[in-house]
């Protein structure tokens, strides 16, 4: 009760205040604001905000309000901010009084206060403070808090709209912020980019891949902005994926009447389209967002697929778009509009969901007409009967506007699908006896259009309409019938003059449009049947001559001159017949959404069908792709030195919202302490990876994801770990596989660090989860082996793939395999093999699986049966094979539902190894144990320019899956690995001995493998 009383009093106050906007009342508020009681001030401010909300002027209070800007009370302060932002523009001088408060707050240790100060400062639209704003933005852009950086991105737009001269400086800030790796910043800075410099595509290149990878984790509003920007970007940077489809379709058609031989020749001639991997990356990373709860995100992904994806992939967005139809009325409206445009070009996409577009009596009018539009576009020979049955219900609807729309839709169906033209016509003729005028009128108009398309067989319909003529009162319908009579008067020679007779009687009382058509009818009949109609025509022309409407007078005069012979009229009357009775082209019944596709889907311009201000055109695909390498990112140098400084800064702040930086800070300090020993830093890097992923999923029990070796754990954490059951570990594993994929970016950088430590420099195309596998592997399968055998990620993954099954022998199924060099998850003794299966036939292949194997004891972890592989589709699967440390081929059968194909995988010796990291010291120790019989060596000759470390590590890593061991000598390179099955250590030393010779030494207890590896290495290095 107290509440309601209070709000009542408040209301009453405000109302009173509004009614009597007297100075005394203002004085009252002023007094309250100037009092030293916090509660009074707050009360006053609340009333002032109430005024602003009502759109009343409260600007006089400015001096009194602005004094409170530095108040300690947060709510009061916030309300003052609201006021300031609203009125600063009008009271610029006074507003300056508040600036120093904000400048002070910009230096506050609390990031949220810094951010809020920048927010308000940049919202005050006072030109004089532009330099202050510029400075604040620049500083905030390099703030350590991502939240403050986000705010600075917002401020960029505000400053730009205030003063466009700052553009160049602002672009610099944008460029800097685009490099930011925080998901918080990404959306906002792209927004600023779109506003300030949408044409500076070059700023995006280097950040393209990062943005693609971050996308899933950006907040939903940012996702929309980034997706729309990337859509435009992709259209300028990649070549069209559609052309090839066209070629492909032609093939399909040709295949019917051309021999296979020719077809294959054709294929080889056609220049194959290769999708840029970056293009693919964008498509792949946006796809999960179709599941977003935010309808704007779903729509923006849908438009991205529509504008960028190969034609056969666009349909994956269908389901999600149909889902949106369940949402609010306004959402439905926009989505239906976009579907309407899409369904004109691609019927097949929405046909399976036809029933979702059935109209309900409760739908709003504009929703109904959009659904009708879509149903009409979806109509084809197969479903037309269903659609027409549905239309029959609609025609009877109480909403007559909608019924009329349905009749037009029936007309469109009838013209598009010739099979049903007659049925539709008959149906429409039945409607002519409908009681509702709108329905009848619309039917007449549509029938006229249909008859025009094929007039030959329909004289009885014309007769029928003539009969109905007396009962029809809607002018447009009457005019249509008259026009039909005139146009086809030769088919109804008896009726037409009679209709004219009736019209002559009622001429004066008709609507203008009917009068015009009557004059036309008279003229046409005069030409074809002057005997019967001469007098009638003259009578009508006389009536027309004195009509009130000048159009009708004009027309009458023109017609008279044209048809009635007299001495004055000359050349033209000879052609009267040809002028009036020329065959007229049939009207085309088209969708209103036909030309909407000139606008990008999902945009405001598309919705209103005119170019909205600020609309950015989607460019056409370039004929030739611009340089792809612009998107390559240089490997980031590990910044060991700079980071600890940051972490000490970090402690300065009491509110530790910046876990990200803390994480990287602390682990990089570990890096620093152990940088001399590569083995430890290897494990370090892994725990770093895990830390990042656990951070991102905000896993509270971080300790579980720490590497077992981490020495910096507290006792309590250790206890916690001991209590862990294997089940829990499994969950953690799944946990990570999830976070890993979404947080690729983090891991990628880390990964780069790992690689850097191995000093193998190249641009990497790793399949990302390899690092993950490594870290999990070490975590899940406690190493039975001695301490130094710490697994590491592969130094290099060769792209080379081998044929497993050629499409000719596989009856259209082709298979290729390659070694991804990841530890096998199924069993540690297995080598994982990646197999890509492609269906090159024109029918789907079902139940692809692995059948018999030989030797029968062969231990294979098969991939799950692939239920169905569509034509032209390919799928990549992983399997594990235990080669038992020998290069003997693994033979097995690859089966489809119908066939069995024997295939075999023969591994190179280098693929049977797994890389490990160890220190130089450990390496020497291990080497010492493996001398004599276990050592094999050879000297080779190499070219002098290849004597630096990089070219050596490259061929070695290509040949064998080995890890680099850091070396203190420049001319000695060491590599270490272990065999997959038995876990025997394999050590490789390459010693360069000037004069272009090198000594390769291999130490391993598996001497056979050793010598085979030596042979391969000799071959590779000699080539190099």
């Amino acid at each position, binding site marked *: 009760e107290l509440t309601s009383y209070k709000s009542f009093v408040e209301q009453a106050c405000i109302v009173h205040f509004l009614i009597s906007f007297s100075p005394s009342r203002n004085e009252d508020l002023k007094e309250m604001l100037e009092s030293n009681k916090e509660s009074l001030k707050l009360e006053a401010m609340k009333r002032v905000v109430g005024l602003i909300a009502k759109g009343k002027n409260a600007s006089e209070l400015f001096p009194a309000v602005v004094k409170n800007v530095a108040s300690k009370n947060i709510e009061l302060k916030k309300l003052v901010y609201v006021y300031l932002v609203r009125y600063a523009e009008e009271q610029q001088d006074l507003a300056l009084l508040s600036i120093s408060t904000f400048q002070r707050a910009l230096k506050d240790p609390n990031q949220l206060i810094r951010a809020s100060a920048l927010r308000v400062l940049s919202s005050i639209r006072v030109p004089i403070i532009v330099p202050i704003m510029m400075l604040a933005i620049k500083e905030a852009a390099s703030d350590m808090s991502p939240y403050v950086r986000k705010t600075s991105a917002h401020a960029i737009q505000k400053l730009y709209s205030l003063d466009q001269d700052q553009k160049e400086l602002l672009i610099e800030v944008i460029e800097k912020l685009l490099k930011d790796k925080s998901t918080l910043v990404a959306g906002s800075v792209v927004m600023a980019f779109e506003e300030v410099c949408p044409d500076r595509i070059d700023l995006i290149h280097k950040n393209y891949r990062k943005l693609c990878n971050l996308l899933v984790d950006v907040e939903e509003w940012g996702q929309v902005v980034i997706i729309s920007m990337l859509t435009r970007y992709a259209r300028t940077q990649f070549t069209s994926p559609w052309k090839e489809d066209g070629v492909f379709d032609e093939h399909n058609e040709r295949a019917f009447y051309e021999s296979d031989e020719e077809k294959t020749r054709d294929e080889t001639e056609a220049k194959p389209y290769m999708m840029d991997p970056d293009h693919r990356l964008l498509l792949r990373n946006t796809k999960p967002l179709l599941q977003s709860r935010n309808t704007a995100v779903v729509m923006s992904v849908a438009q991205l697929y529509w504008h960028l994806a190969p034609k056969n992939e666009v349909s994956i967005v269908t389901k999600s778009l149909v889902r949106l139809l369940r949402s609010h009325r306004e959402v439905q409206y926009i989505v239906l509009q976009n579907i309407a445009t899409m369904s004109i070009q691609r019927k097949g996409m929405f046909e399976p969901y036809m029933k979702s577009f059935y109209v309900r009596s409760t739908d709003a009018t504009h929703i109904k007409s959009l659904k009708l539009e879509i149903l009409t576009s979806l109509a084809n020979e197969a479903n037309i009967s269903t659609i027409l049955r549905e239309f029959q219900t609609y025609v009877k609807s109480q909403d007559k506007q909608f019924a009329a729309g349905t009749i037009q839709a029936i007309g469109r169906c009838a013209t598009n699908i010739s099979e049903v033209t007659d049925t539709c016509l008959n149906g429409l003729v039945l409607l002519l006896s409908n009681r509702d005028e709108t329905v009848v009128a619309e039917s007449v108009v549509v029938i006229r259009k249909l008859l025009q398309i094929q007039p030959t067989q329909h004289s009885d319909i014309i007769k029928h309409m003539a009969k109905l003529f007396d009962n029809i009162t809607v002018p447009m319908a009457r005019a249509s019938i008259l026009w039909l009579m005139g146009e086809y008067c030769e088919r109804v020679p008896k009726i037409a003059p009679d209709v004219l007779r009736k019209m002559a009687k009622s001429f004066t009382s008709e609507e203008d449009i009917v009068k015009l058509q009557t004059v036309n009818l008279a003229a046409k009949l005069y030409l074809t049947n002057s005997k019967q109609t001469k007098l009638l025509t003259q009578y009508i022309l006389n009536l027309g001559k004195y009509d009130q409407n000048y159009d009708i007078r004009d027309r009458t005069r023109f017609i008279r001159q044209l048809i009635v012979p007299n001495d004055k009229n000359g050349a033209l009357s000879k052609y009267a017949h040809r002028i009036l009775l020329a065959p007229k082209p049939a009207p085309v019944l088209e969708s209103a959404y036909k030309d909407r596709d000139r606008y990008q889907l999902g945009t405001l311009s598309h919705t209103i069908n005119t170019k909205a201000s*600020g609309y950015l055109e989607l460019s056409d695909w370039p004929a030739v792709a611009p340089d792809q390498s612009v998107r390559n990112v240089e490997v980031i140098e590990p910044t060991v030195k700079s980071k600890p400084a940051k972490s000490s800064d970090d402690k300065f702040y009491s509110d530790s919202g910046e876990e990200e930086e803390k994480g990287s800070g602390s682990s990089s300090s570990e890096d620093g302490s152990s940088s001399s020993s590569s083995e430890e830093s290897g494990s370090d890097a892994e725990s770093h990876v895990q830390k990042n992923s656990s951070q991102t999923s905000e896993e509270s*029990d971080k300790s579980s994801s720490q590497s077992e070796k981490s020495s910096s754990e507290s006792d309590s954490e250790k206890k916690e770990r001991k209590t862990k059951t294997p089940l829990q570990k499994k969950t953690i594993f799944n946990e990570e596989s999830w976070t890993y994929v979404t947080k690729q970016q983090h891991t990628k950088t880390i990964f780069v660090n790992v690689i850097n430590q191995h000093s193998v420099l190249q641009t990497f195309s790793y399949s990302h989860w390899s690092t993950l596998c490594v870290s999990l592997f070490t975590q899940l399968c406690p190493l039975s082996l001695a301490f130094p055998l710490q697994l590491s990620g592969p130094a290099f993954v060769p792209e080379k793939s081998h044929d497993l099954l050629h499409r000719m022998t596989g009856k259209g199924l082709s298979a290729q395999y390659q070694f991804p060099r990841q530890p096998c998850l199924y069993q540690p003794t297995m080598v994982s093999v990646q197999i890509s299966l492609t269906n090159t036939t024109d029918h789907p292949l079902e139940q692809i699986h692995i059948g018999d194997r030989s030797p029968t004891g062969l231990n294979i972890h098969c991939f799950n049966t692939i239920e169905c592989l569509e034509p032209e589709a390919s799928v990549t699967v992983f399997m594990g094979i235990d080669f038992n440390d020998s290069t003997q081929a693994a033979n097995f059968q690859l089966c489809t539902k119908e066939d069995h194909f024997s295939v075999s995988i023969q591994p190179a010796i280098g693929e049977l190894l797994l890389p490990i990291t160890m220190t130089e010291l450990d390496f020497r120790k291990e080497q010492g144990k493996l001398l004599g019989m276990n050592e094999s060596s050879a000297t080779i000759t190499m070219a002098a320019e290849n004597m630096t470390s990089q070219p050596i590590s490259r061929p070695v890593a290509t040949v064998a899956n080995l890890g680099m061991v850091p070396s203190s000598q420049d001319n000695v390179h060491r590599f270490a690995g272990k065999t997959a099955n038995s876990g025997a250590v394999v050590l490789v030393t390459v010693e360069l001995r000037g004069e272009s010779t090198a000594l390769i030494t291999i130490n391993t207890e598996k001497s056979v493998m050793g010598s085979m590896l030596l042979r391969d290495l000799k071959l590779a290095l000699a080539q190099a």
Partner: protein
Amino acid sequence: MQLPAKMIHSLFLVNSSGDIFLEKHWKSVVSRSVCDYFFEAQERASEPENVPPVIPTPHHYLISVLRHRIYFVAVIQSEVPPLFVIEFLHRVVDTFQDYFGVCTEAAIKDNVVVVYELLEEMLDNGFPLATESNILKELIKPPTILRTVVNTITGSTNVGEQLPTGQLSVVPWRRTGVKYTNNEAYFDVVEEIDAIIDKSGSTITAEIQGVIDACVKLTGMPDLTLSFMNPRLLDDVSFHPCVRFKRWEAERILSFIPPDGNFRLLSYHVSCQNLVAIPVYVKHNITFREGSSQGRFELTLGPKQTMGKGLEAVLISSQLPRGVLNTNLNPSQGTYNFDPVTKLLSWDVGKINPQKLPSLKGSMSLQAGASKPDENPTINIQFKIQQSALSGLKVNRLDMYGEKYKPFKGIKYMTKAGKFQVRT
């Protein structure tokens, strides 16, 4: 000169009688006369729902949503995806509803300061900033009776003293430092069936849309997994951002760190391909005779394939043809009402007893001399079935990781009629 700025420029709240009762500008002020274009469209529209959501004017574009009989009209100056604005406006309404319990003109006027504070946080320069309810609640506490009383007496505020750190974290949807003495997690599986049944009783289209709404009150940072007995049923799903998508892709398990409080975890769609069991049937006989001023009206309802669960809260509504002057009907149970002005017939049936089927019988009087209506009215049905999800979806188990206590878990199923229409 100021450039046409992107995103949302201003917001006007308009009530059903066409008065602007609140305005908020995120950039320089736009005169409220811009709404005249909106009022014009409002006048043209026969029903409130028929106002087009996007209205172009010479200098601005108006994008509006209608909820709770209030139009939320956003003023836009340049190209922006319309759904972006629409989705945001709906979020605003949801937030108001969350804060004030109802979203009415009175509630908004009563809480105008909180509304202003909320709008200020939700948009920065017209671009959405904080739209997560958990973050907003940390910034601005929802008004409760107790708090209002305390505030009045002590002069303290609704604005959070502590600044939210959730906004900065990677789990922006959950606030930090959550504590409960009773830890509980409730999940409601609610399915709505949309259907069109034709004259003869056969199904033209039927589909099931479901949601899982959760009310999670758990201490700390719990990590939950929810698995289904039959996840294959779900044809198309959309998630709250907390759900880990890849995990769902791979294992069909919902794994998430929940927001605190009420939220919608998942909405899903069960495809039309799976035959949908229609839980209710309608026998109807509605006839108008030519020349007579009387029409017959007979309606009988009965349960069908309800798996032993009863139909509750059954409500029938139908828009009768314009020619009907009045009705004289006799319900076997419940109450019926006919509005002679809007021609809306509604019959509150209540529970259906399978032994004694409810019926509504009688006559309609028609306008004398008017011709027989072309179309029979469509009948809209609402109903509820407790303790059952029509699609057969079943939650298998809910597990919690990351926290040590044992939470209380509960799950409830319910089926409702969505847009369920019978054509007669």
